[in-house]
């Protein structure tokens, strides 16, 4: 199910999602309309524009929250032309998994976007790589990130985007055991507490990077 006030984009998105094997069950112009559609027929996942009528501010997040209250099983993928750290943190804090936050540009890489959308539908978390890169590159005083090796930094960035250990291993062409060792080392070096739940792990890393 899709919600975006730009018709061309919405229609195009519906078409390519259909091409890659999704069934688009509804399209809405704004949050209220989407909420009505979700109520009538809850989908696996919704794609929501962050900045929509009436206020063109962060209506997408409010809509997402309303959907989560009424239909907790529905995955929420938020798209925006800007990705902001505070929105990402809010999405990680207020929602316990099943959320994604991507730059709108990402939809042009259909395969990757389709994969991300499926993750969100399955209750996993997706955070835009641009935002994570920006936070990792952020200058800090006495930067604890300097104690990480190059590989550890790469693993951290992927973790922050919501990838599981297995996904990180696949992405970096490493053995799952090796990734586990890296993750343990990163959490020790940064003084973070390991979380079993992947979503909690993303939140901890994002909070650390933003602090």
């Amino acid at each position: 199910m899709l919600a975006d006030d730009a018709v061309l984009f919405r229609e195009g998105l519906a078409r390519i999602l259909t091409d890659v094997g999704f069934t688009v069950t509804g399209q809405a112009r704004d949050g209220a309309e989407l909420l009505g559609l979700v109520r009538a027929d809850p989908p696996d996942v919704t794609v929501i524009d962050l900045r929509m009528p009436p206020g063109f501010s962060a209506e997408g997040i409010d809509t997402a929250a309303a959907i989560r209250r009424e239909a907790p099983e529905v995955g929420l993928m938020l798209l925006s032309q800007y990705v902001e750290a505070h929105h990402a943190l809010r999405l990680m804090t207020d929602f316990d998994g099943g959320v994604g936050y991507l730059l709108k540009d990402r939809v042009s890489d259909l395969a990757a976007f389709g994969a991300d959308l499926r993750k969100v539908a399955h209750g996993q978390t997706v955070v835009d790589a641009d935002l994570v890169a920006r936070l990792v590159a952020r200058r800090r005083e006495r930067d604890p990130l300097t104690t990480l090796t190059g590989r550890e930094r790469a693993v951290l960035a992927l973790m922050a985007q919501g990838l599981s250990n297995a996904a990180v291993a696949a992405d970096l062409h490493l053995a799952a055991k090796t990734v586990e060792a890296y993750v343990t080392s990163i959490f020790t070096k940064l003084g973070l507490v390991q979380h079993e739940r992947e979503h909690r792990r993303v939140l901890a890393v994002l909070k650390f990077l933003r602090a």
Partner: protein
Amino acid sequence: MGAAAIVLVAGGFALGPHPGNLHNGLIAVSFTAVGLYVAGRRPGHREALLFVAVGAAHAVMFAGRQYGLHAGPLPGASWIGWFGIWPLPLVLVLVGAAVMCFPAGRLPSPGWRPVVAVLAAVGFVLSAVSALWPVEYARVGLVAGPPFRLAGFPAADAFYSVARPAGYLLFQLVWVACVVVRVRRARGDEARQLRWFLYAATVSAAVMVAGLAVWRSPLPGTLTAPLLAVAAGAAILRHRLYDIDPVINKSLVVGAMAAVVTVGYAVIVVGAGRLVDGHGTLLSLVATGVVAVAFQPVRERVQRLADRLVYGRRTTPYEALSRLSAHLTAPAGGLLDGICATVADAVGAREVVLWTGPADDLRAVAIWPPGTPLPGEHNPPDEPGTPGGPAVAPVVHDGRFQGALTVTRAPGETMSVAEQRVLGDLAAQAGLVLELRATAQRLVAAGDAARRRLERDLHDGAQQRLVTVAMELGAVVRLATTSGAAEVAERADGVRRQLLEATAELREMARGLHPAVLTQDGLEAAVGFLADRSALPVRLSLAVPRRLPAEVEATAYFVVSEGLTNAARHSGAATVTVEVTLDGAGLLVEVCDDGEGAAVVRAGSGLEGLADRLATLDARLTVESGPAGTRLRTVIPCG
């Protein structure tokens, strides 16, 4: 000291009533008490110490005289009484010093020190003669005689009878001259302090004269001695300092009118009564009528005279306007304060407030005296003519209401026609200034709105279209891949990537125009974004619990942005500290770095643009740049 004075005075009073010595006791009690009270409130105040000294000296003299005046001579009365006699000239020198040093405890200028030295020398000689020979005893009438007798009394008495009046006259002339010099030079609060004291002295003298004239007794005048001490103490502590002018003014008018009525009535009834005998009742009626008719015109004259005596000459309209022009060329930000200061000078106000905004929603923007907190955000001044309320002058420019000036004066003071005219002229000038200020604000607001609109247009237009096209290209890539046209797929993907790069550049441009995050999520989020992107580590301290007017948020954002850019570009700093805090005074924005400090407000520089922008919000940009780093700081008033 206080206890000793009380013991001496109480003991003295216990020895019986002696009206001729009463003034010493009253002065002892009142000056010691006032001096100690003032010293308690202002430790080490020199005038307070002088008062205590005056009180203590009088206590000693009072007790000595009381002892010596006792009808049945007491043991040792000669010696103790002697202490009530001879110190008098020296005590008078002390009193003179206290008067000359009022109110701060310092002489008007160092040039007066030799004069005081001469007075002290004269006092010393007089006291010495009075101590050695009983030249003062006849005047005081002590029961107990002098404790010893030296030869040469006739010569000493002859000298003293000439030297004493001459010396005392000298004392009085010097005091008066000194006080006159001080009054002529005094301005502002010091002038009001002096007026309190002189007012008390005048009342005391008037009672003395009336007492001598009516009851042929100095007693009523003597009883007013404590009034002087209390008035002087109040003046030093500045207690109700500003109420003195109307008090004097009213006293002068009432006193003068009482005299006019009495004299007028007496002249008519008595004078005309001689000519027209036997028509007493008729004459009384006529007299009453004449006095009643003459009363109002005479009162107005007297009031004007009293105004001139009390308030002196106020700044003339021309002076006020030329001073305002001087303020207008002063650096921006102080302009509105300058208007208030000029108005205060011109009409002798206690408080002047400049308000701007529509008539039903005025906001205070400047106040005199400087440092006074501005009245509540939307607190329109009282309607003109409200009794006891401030005078209000509307500020109008080109027929448009711009705001108002309110002038608060001491209670009971009314504004003369001339003063109202000056206020009106200044309000007209203020109208021009407010209009210019409003124009600058409108320009900045219009610029901001244009940038916001551009950002929104880019977001909803070009950016949206480019993203959609990239998405369609993605679909083409997929189609080419599935249909086996690998080369087409590869080239199409290359185009897609380039398109995304172009989109990213456009996004950055749009953000530079006006960050959407600022409009949507406020200052904390937007400054957080700046810190994330800064090339230098940023220590953030943010406390902005609510949304602020768009122009305030945008200006604060640009201050932080410019500060971070400068720090990264020029200073060689290791870290930057950014503080954005909202408190009672307004929004504090501060950017400090620990670099070498090279920031200056140059014409055409980013900092100058910021300073101009801040000026439209009545805020000032301070730039401190030195070897320890650079600090940009401003406080934007936002109610």
